[in-house]
């Protein structure tokens, strides 16, 4: 045991202070938008427009959305032709049938990848994203580099994601500018015949539904 004590001190550099190694998440002064958010939220509660419980409930709704939800929708579309048809024609209604309420803030459109068209989604003006299906967007989706380059050089951006689209396939960029949110319906990967919806859903990543990745079949055992 004496050895153990020595070992600890030999190995452990002690020239640090005694603050916890992980900073408090809100250490440092608040930014202007943090101040604004807190002020508006406090006012809405004080004036009885919203309750703190309603705000917490909405945060819970947002946290319940993730790419896994979108992947389930894609897998259903791959296995149920009638569902796919409805999903492409009336995305809101098809998602409602599937038990997903996308709310009232935006309309949704599913865009289908085919052997002739590869779709990719961007929002050059801000960061419009189908949050009610995919959850919070990745940081890069909001970056100026992705937003500005995807409209002007989509194939170059896709190549950086490891996606090479042949020159006889149209790359179709969707710049979400207004009241519609776009989600890519990727092509079902080869080698997945007979797979269950759950196995298929495991091939669909978030980026597949933005258009910056393609689903890849892994063996069903690994899926």
């Amino acid at each position: 045991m004496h050895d153990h004590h020595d070992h600890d001190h030999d190995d452990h550099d002690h020239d640090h202070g005694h603050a916890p190694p992980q900073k408090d998440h809100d250490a440092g002064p608040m930014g202007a938008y943090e101040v604004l958010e807190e002020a508006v939220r406090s006012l809405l509660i004080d004036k009885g427009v919203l309750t703190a419980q309603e705000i917490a409930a909405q945060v819970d709704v947002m946290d319940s959305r993730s790419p896994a939800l979108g992947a389930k929708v894609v897998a259903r579309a791959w296995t149920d032709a009638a569902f796919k048809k409805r999903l492409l024609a009336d995305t809101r209604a098809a998602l409602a049938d599937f038990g997903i309420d996308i709310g009232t803030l935006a309309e949704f459109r599913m865009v289908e990848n085919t052997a002739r068209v590869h779709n990719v989604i961007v929002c050059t003006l801000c960061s419009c994203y189908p949050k009610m299906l995919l959850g919070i967007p990745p940081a890069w989706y909001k970056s100026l580099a992705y937003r500005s380059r995807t409209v002007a050089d989509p194939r170059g951006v896709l190549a950086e994601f490891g996606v090479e689209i042949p020159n006889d396939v149209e790359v179709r960029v969707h710049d979400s500018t207004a009241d519609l949110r776009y989600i890519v319906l990727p092509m079902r990967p080869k080698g997945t015949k007979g797979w269950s919806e759950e196995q298929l859903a495991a091939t669909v990543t978030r980026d597949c539904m933005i258009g910056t990745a393609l689903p890849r079949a892994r063996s069903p055992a690994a899926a």
Partner: protein
Amino acid sequence: MVRARVKAGNDAPPARRFSPGDPVRVADREAVGHCRTPWYLRGKAGVVAAIQGRFRNPEMLAYHKPGLPALTLYKVRFRQNQLWDRYAGPACDQLEVDIFEHWLEPPK
């Protein structure tokens, strides 16, 4: 909860200026404030691909105005090699953007 954007009802007048297949040009004018027409498309020629419905005007909604009457929103398709002088991809590549009616004009 807050409903910032509510789709307009069917009581809005159905008249619209353009139909799918029509060639259009994005107005080349400046705008101050919350405008949803990207700069890189101003003055560019495209084709109406679809009618997306009628939505309240975001340029008014952003300033707490009702944004009514609702405006027709068009999906407009552009050829990439007509948007960018040195577009690197093949001629088949396209870009689709939703643009409100008051930003679209007949081609010159």
